[in-house]
């Protein structure tokens, strides 16, 4: 059961639509208080934190740093469960190739790489970029965040850059011309490249799992 005072902070650093994530969280945790916030201090008062992101990484990183969320997110991860989504996940890596190279938060080891203009299937068929739509996520380890989500379930993706990370933090992979990290986990941090808030039943289940997750393993 969700504690009625559970506070879920959705970080708003001025980039894109955060309402989908907030609405989906409200849907799976009707008793929780879901707060969209542009104030890093709110993360200290929250029980759990959602770090979303859409758009270009350079602008995102600039806004994250300007608002002081670089420090606040690093601190939150030490104390409470944090779910990073899409560009939020990419922002946690060491650096991204997007926008001619951008230094990211370097909280997780790994790089963000471009899919490429000449992305092809193994049989040579051309693949469109961005990678947009429903693709299978292969769970590489058991984790409470995967509870009640069948192996190789489809989630909704939309991205042109993808994460290449050390195997020991990868908990889910996806295939699109290459194998890339669809989900990462370390300590209190769970990060996904796909959009659970737009992934229908499976996505809502993942958010529900997050609301019930104690962090750690």
């Amino acid at each position, binding site marked *: 059961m969700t504690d009625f005072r559970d506070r879920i902070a959705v970080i708003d650093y001025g980039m894109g639509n955060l309402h989908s994530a907030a609405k989906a969280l409200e849907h799976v945790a009707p008793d929780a208080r879901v707060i969209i916030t542009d104030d890093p201090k709110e993360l200290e008062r929250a029980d759990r934190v959602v770090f979303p992101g859409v758009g270009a990484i350079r602008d995102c990183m600039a806004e994250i740093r300007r608002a002081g969320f670089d420090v606040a997110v690093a601190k939150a991860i030490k104390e409470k469960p944090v779910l990073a989504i899409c560009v939020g996940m990419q922002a946690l890596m060491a650096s991204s190739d997007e926008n001619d190279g951008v230094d990211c938060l370097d909280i997780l080891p790994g790089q963000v790489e471009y899919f490429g203009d000449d992305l092809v299937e193994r*049989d040579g068929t051309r693949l469109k970029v961005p990678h*947009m739509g429903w693709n299978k996520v292969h769970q590489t380890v058991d984790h409470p965040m995967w509870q009640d989500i069948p192996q190789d379930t489809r989630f909704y993706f939309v991205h042109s850059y993808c994460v290449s990370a050390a195997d020991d933090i990868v908990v889910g992979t996806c295939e699109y011309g290459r194998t890339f990290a669809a989900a990462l986990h370390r300590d209190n941090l769970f990060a996904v490249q796909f959009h659970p808030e*737009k992934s229908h039943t499976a996505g809502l289940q993942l958010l529900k799992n997050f609301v019930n997750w104690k962090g750690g393993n």
Partner: protein
Amino acid sequence: MSALAKRIIPCLDVDGGRVVKGVQFLDIRDAGDPVEVAKRYNEEGADEITFLDITATHEGRDTTLHTVERMAAEVFIPLTVGGGVKTLADIKALLRAGADKVAINSAAVHSPEFVREAAEKFGSQCIVVAIDAKRVSKDEETPRWEIFTHGGRKSTGIDAVQWVRQMAALGAGEILLTSMDRDGTKNGFDLALTRAISDAVSVPVIASGGVGNLQHLVDGVLEGGADAVLAASIFHFQEYSISDAKQYMAERGVEVRQ
């Protein structure tokens, strides 16, 4: 093989907060409520919803935002909203209401730079450029299509293939392609057009206009090279459910989400 599914996208035409073109779900009390219709499609397994606002009045616009808000609170799949999007403020209002993507049509023809500004401000992932194309070549000539506005009545003289290349270069994240020759005919997509547009750009292409049966959806993907297929009337009138469509497509070798 990549497991990325080809998407099936039902389209709702909405006027002043009501679905038009007649939706006939027998078990829905208010058949004209777009939120109820979207929920039904969502339950049937739609991969996205496209909401085309054909409201003409200013008051109706507020109704549209309110409808999008209600839909986004109940339907957790991607939602594209198009129709009358002219300014960055229009896009911002729709995204804030809960749209995931916004479709720009005639405003792009009026000012291609608007697409660049929109993509830079909100990200390519949420900018869909919708085009209405019509064949202008004679039967014996190499096929050529031009961009039309005003519901297919007004020619712009712009070549459709060059136009989508330009739109993708300016930052469009996806192309919603409607064949004005086929729209409403139920004779199937213009497959040559779909193939020409899909081959011309690296971004995904949604085929629209002319779907009358499930084989048309398969043809759009396998022959037209579409990444997604959009249809309105075959789903509205319950000739087929979304799950019927997916099963039919899967049996013919199209990767779908089931």
